[in-house]
């Protein structure tokens, strides 16, 4: 009986190992990508939202996205990867890419300071202090970015910071296609 107890660590480890193995297999076959999970929202309309704007306080709703191809970028000041991503977003904004920010589970005062200090790449920033919109989106963490087309449909989702590689390999072609297809 005593001997059996000594097997507990092994069993716990075996379960974990099998789990990791399955995840790795799925990553290998492309079925699961922790950095770019096919969102449940893919090709579905972006959830309805009605949140105050972080800077002006005015209520912002889905109408702000109407008739535009927009990146919806979930970020927060507590997230170091967002800090890494921020300069690149500024660059994209300068190039004319439309980005709507979702300030997720964050301290509004800190977030305003952040934008004031580092620059604001966003068309509008939704103040999602309670994380309700994040929950609707199925956000796992920040940063996370969604590409929404003119009809308000989610076309692409990316977890992790947007950088040169993501932009040139995936995002830019997709954005160009969507803009062209729907009559830019």
């Amino acid at each position, binding site marked *: 009986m005593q001997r059996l107890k*000594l097997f507990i660590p092994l069993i716990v480890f075996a379960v974990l190992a099998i789990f*990791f193995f399955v995840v790795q297999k799925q990553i290998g076959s492309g079925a699961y990508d922790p950095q770019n999970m096919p969102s449940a929202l893919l090709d579905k309309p972006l959830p309805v939202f009605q949140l105050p704007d972080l800077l002006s306080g005015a209520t912002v709703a889905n109408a702000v996205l109407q008739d535009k191809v927009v990146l919806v970028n979930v970020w927060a000041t507590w997230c170091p990867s967002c800090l890494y991503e921020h300069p690149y977003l500024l660059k994209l904004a300068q190039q004319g890419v439309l980005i709507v920010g979702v300030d997720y589970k964050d301290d509004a005062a800190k977030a305003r300071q952040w934008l004031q200090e580092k620059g604001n790449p966003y068309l509008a920033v939704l103040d999602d202090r309670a994380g309700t919109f994040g929950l609707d989106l199925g956000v796992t963490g920040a940063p996370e970015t969604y590409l929404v087309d003119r009809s308000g449909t989610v076309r692409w989702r990316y977890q992790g910071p947007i950088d040169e590689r993501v932009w040139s390999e995936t995002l830019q072609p997709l954005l160009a296609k969507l803009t062209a297809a729907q009559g830019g």
Partner: protein
Amino acid sequence: MVPELGHFALILALCLAVALVVLPAAGVFRRSELLMQSARPLALGLWVMTSVAFAVLAQAFLNDDFSVAIVAAQSNSELPWFYKFAAVWGGHEGSLLLWMWILSAWCVAVAIFSRQLPLDMLARVLCVMGAVAVGFLLFMLLTSNPFGRLLPNPPAEGSDLNPLLQDPGMVIHPPMLYFGYVGFSVAFAFAIAALWSGKLDAAWARWSRPWSMVAWLFLTIGIALGSWWAYSVLGWGGWWFWDPVENASFMPWLVGTALIHSLAVTDKRGVFKSWTVLLAIFAFSLSLLGTFLVRSGVLTSVHSFAADPTRGIFILVFLGVVIGSSLTLYALRAPTVANKTDYSWLSREIFLLGNNILLLVAALSVLSGTLFPLIVDSLHLGKYSVGPPYFNAVFVPLMSILLVFMGIGPSNNWKRSRADELWRRLLPALLASLIVGFAFPFAYRGQFHWGVVLTVCLASWVIFTTVVDLRNKLRNANGWSAGLRRLTPAYYGMLIAHIGFAVSVLGVGLTTAYTEERDLRVAVGEHAQLAGYDFLFSGTESTRGPNYSAERGLIVVARDGKQLAELHPEKRRYNARRDQVMTEADIDAGLFRDIYVALGEPLENGAWAVRLHYKPFVRWIWLGGLLMALGGGLTVCDGRYRLQRRATTVAAAVAA
């Protein structure tokens, strides 16, 4: 041609590592002294070959040989030489080679410093370490060869080391961390050797104690450096992010801390043997798991500069073999006969066990916090993010209890303490820490603050009980100095390490409570105030570094009309990585406060957005880490380890 020599040296190293597994093991089974003797020279050979490979790679970096793929990816001809050298481990392949080199260095260290170890144990220990080396060498040669070439058309210039890594802290942080990680492989090898031989006794604990301590102290320094690096480089004054990569180094540290305490009990009292072995296996397993999590791309993080999912399966299989087989061995061979419990519920053993359990629970909660989002998500149960709130909620209570135990534990006797005696001895310390704890926030800020009261009470509890214990130890000596001389280095090591932990706790608690920060727009010649300090912004100028150009600000800090410091925060743009702008903060450091200034964005008319931080006691976090490492170092220097080891070998020889 030269890089191929490095590749060849790695292949030779693999052959030697295989021999290091096979020959000594055969020696153990066939009781052949000659075969067992081969372990030492083989370990040395492994180290020489790995060193050759490392030197070749370092040479390629220093000479800007951009035909080597990782040199082209991670270096640049304009990079200063020390960053070129540090760039060797700035990516996946190079950091693996560094890992491997450190493992071989540990093998040699064991071969040299274990003269007193019985030959069959040495053969077993080196055989286990050889097996780990085989795994890492195979991994490197099959999936991540550091000597891959970009031929026939090598690039003329490299794409430069990630600017975040161009920091003095980053030159020494990874080697320290790896020395710690890999150092637990020695404790692990000793544990496996003990299970294998069936001689799981107090002697085993004594042999592995100094090794575990050295590994732990390197890991402590490594983590402290990593935190300091994040503070000074990420540019926004944070010093710990509960990021997966940080957690990967923190988990082995927590378990390693439990291990060094548990080893002490096993050494001194011969109890908790199975538990100690399990901790040794866990500490190394978590080091490997950390590598897996960081390298496989299963978890993403800002710090993992070298992730590649395709390699995940290999590491996972390797991990499965190492951890699976050692836990199987543990399940089959660990002693089941419980020791006669000759310690009571109030004894040093019990408090050490309590501290062990707390540390293990802490490590497991970090593990689950790190893995939880992944597990829940891949089982399609929903999506969660686990952030600092979870870790803080778990850690504050756990560490509070741990600190209470740390105060009581050392004042206890082995076997049995008397409650009334303990109470009488510790009551003054309890009252003093309560008084200091409640008085501190009023004295410092004239305001009550719960977090500060808790922090200061607990930290001063540890410090005061340490003083009480020291006084108690001296009560029979003829005078202070004679008594102080009589105490052992190991005892002083414990005192310093415990006080170091209290100092770190003070740093964490007080910085969290009293940090002040402001983001403002300042025009040239404009003043700003923060926490009683005056900041004068005198504009910016353009400067050039070896491989970057920068805007360099000048901010004069003054207090009560007296100038304290001139700070030069910078915004750097690296020549080879145009789109990455680095915020180089400037810090006026002090024991009781840091003043931290970072440039934000340039605004109109020479005005800038700046971020000012006032961070009291932040240095204490790392100072405490250094004290802990110093304590560990003192303990290792204690001559009793070596003397006792000799005594046991003699005893064993006589018994045989």
